[in-house]
């Protein structure tokens, strides 16, 4: 009895962590389980029966397909642009001394601390005053804008833990700065760039609030869901959400694997004991 009690005391925090993680995962399980539901009416809230019908018909709703296509196009473009711009900014901030670092830092941090509703509303205000038509192009402007800061922070954390002696070695061997960047720096920070791109893609494809303000008549995947919510969301939405979830998890695991491999190959930054391999998005950077 006392043995059991002691075991419980020692493992209390682990049990608690298990419960907290279950809490985090339950809604995801609900989404996946309800993609197999066969709802009686148009609302997919109660479990009725198992069917594969909606998985077979996953891409059978043309409005939903169009929305998904728009979202993917938008996310790819926003990712490419914000990753290119953001990586350059991270390089400048970590590698160079220059006047104006503080205001630059400030301008990068503030968007991350701005409620989305304010970002969406302020962009819309500008578009309204200038009479700029809303649509795909305004969505792209907005998505690149809110992705940039997260890209900078992610790439930068990779650059900070970077062994510069490798670059010095390259230069000692006669490489010019551009060759050094191409052959040494870029391959080493590539996992960080990939992680940043993944994060930007996830932020863009998931964005609802800012898009809701600046979309005009263009419909993205989250906007489709919002519009469908009143008249009942088709089960196919759950199917696609499940597919998106699985794709992102795979992409994430792939990045982690690649990062580990890069580290093993170069030994540039031997992984410290207990250092997380998961590229922590968003708030992580905010730790002191």
């Amino acid at each position, binding site marked *: 009895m006392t043995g059991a009690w002691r075991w419980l005391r020692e493992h209390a*925090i682990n049990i608690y*962590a298990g419960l*907290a*993680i279950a*809490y*985090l995962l339950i*809604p*995801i399980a*609900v989404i996946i389980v309800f993609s197999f539901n066969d709802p009686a009416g148009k609302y997919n*809230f*109660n479990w009725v029966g198992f069917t594969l019908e909606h998985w077979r018909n996953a891409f059978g709703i043309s409005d939903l397909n169009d929305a998904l296509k728009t979202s993917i196009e938008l996310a790819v473009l926003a990712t490419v642009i914000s990753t290119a*711009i953001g990586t*350059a*900014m991270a390089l400048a901030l970590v590698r160079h001394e220059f006047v104006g670092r*503080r205001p*630059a830092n400030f*301008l*990068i*941090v503030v*968007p991350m*601390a*701005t*409620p989305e*509703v*304010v970002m969406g*509303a*302020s962009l819309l*205000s*500008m578009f*309204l005053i200038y009479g700029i038509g809303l649509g795909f192009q305004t969505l792209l*402007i*907005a998505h690149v*804008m809110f992705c*940039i800061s997260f890209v*900078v*922070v992610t790439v*930068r*954390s990779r650059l*900070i833990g970077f062994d510069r002696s490798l670059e010095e070695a390259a230069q000692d061997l006669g490489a010019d700065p551009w060759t050094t960047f191409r052959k040494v720096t870029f391959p080493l920070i590539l996992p960080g760039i990939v992680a940043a791109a993944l994060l930007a893609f*996830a932020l863009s*494809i*998931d964005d609802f*609030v800012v898009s809701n*303000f600046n979309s005009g008549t263009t419909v993205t995947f989250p906007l489709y*869901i919002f519009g469908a*919510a009143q008249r009942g969301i088709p089960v196919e939405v759950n199917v696609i*959400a499940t597919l*998106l979830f699985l794709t992102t998890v795979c992409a994430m695991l792939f990045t982690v694997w690649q990062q580990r491999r890069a580290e093993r190959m170069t030994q540039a930054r031997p992984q410290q004991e*207990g250092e*997380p391999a*998961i590229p*922590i*998005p*968003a*708030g*992580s*950077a*905010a*730790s*002191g």
Partner: protein
Amino acid sequence: MTSVRRRLVPYFLLGPGIIWLILFFAVPMYFMARLSLYSGTVFQGNLQFDWHWANFKDSLDLYHSQFVRSFIYAGAATLIALVISYPLAYAIAFKGGRWKNAMLLAVVAPFFTTYLIRTIAWETILSDQSPVVKVLTDVGLATNGHVLATAGAVIAGITYNFLPFMVLPLYASLERIDPALIEAGRDLYGSPAAVFRKVTLPLSAPGLVAGTLLTFIPAAGDYVNAFFLGAPNNQMIGNVIQDLYLKQTDYPAAAALSFILMALIMVVFVVYIRFAGSEALMGEEARP
């Protein structure tokens, strides 16, 4: 010549991103402020800029309760998220062992599903027929067998949706604590509670501050949770802003409210910067 070129490099690297952020983040804030001083309506076609300060007073008179509610909901959600996250982050950092990466992946997993679908999953979980609500009713936590369309449901949704923003910074700062410091505390006969209070807690303060801020800010501006999980009397300021902008096209009032929201958030943010330093938020500190 080359040294001039070298000095210009950081500006070339930063340029595109800074210009993008100025044009599509900073300048829109100016236009939002300007729009909040317009008078007239879209319907009458007499919308014009004339320093109409009354917008601020009028919209606050009408919607101050939504403001107060937003901050109460966001505060409550932040507090609950902290209570849930701290032991979880602690367990991952100190007891995770080889499960560390898997646990971190589970924490970020909700980010891989669409925000709206996650919230709608909670609508399913908290609907009247669900087993969760039955249990809550049995233990007396849900009055009349309802959870949906109450303040509790909105706060629960917000807590869930922003929980990773709390866990990750807490984890990052806890993980950095040298276990030797905690051992030293125990060797000096500190009780577990005293060691926690005098060693662990102060050392995790940066993560605590960052986590609370990163949860509170998006929570205060959120309107998705109130939309799906709340009743009309659970509306938050975000709901009002999006409604005024997109449905009622009362742009001046909407702009005034977003401006006030942004100003309040900036106060919180600047106090934080004073307290913790902008470098901490950017993750600029060199890692040991």
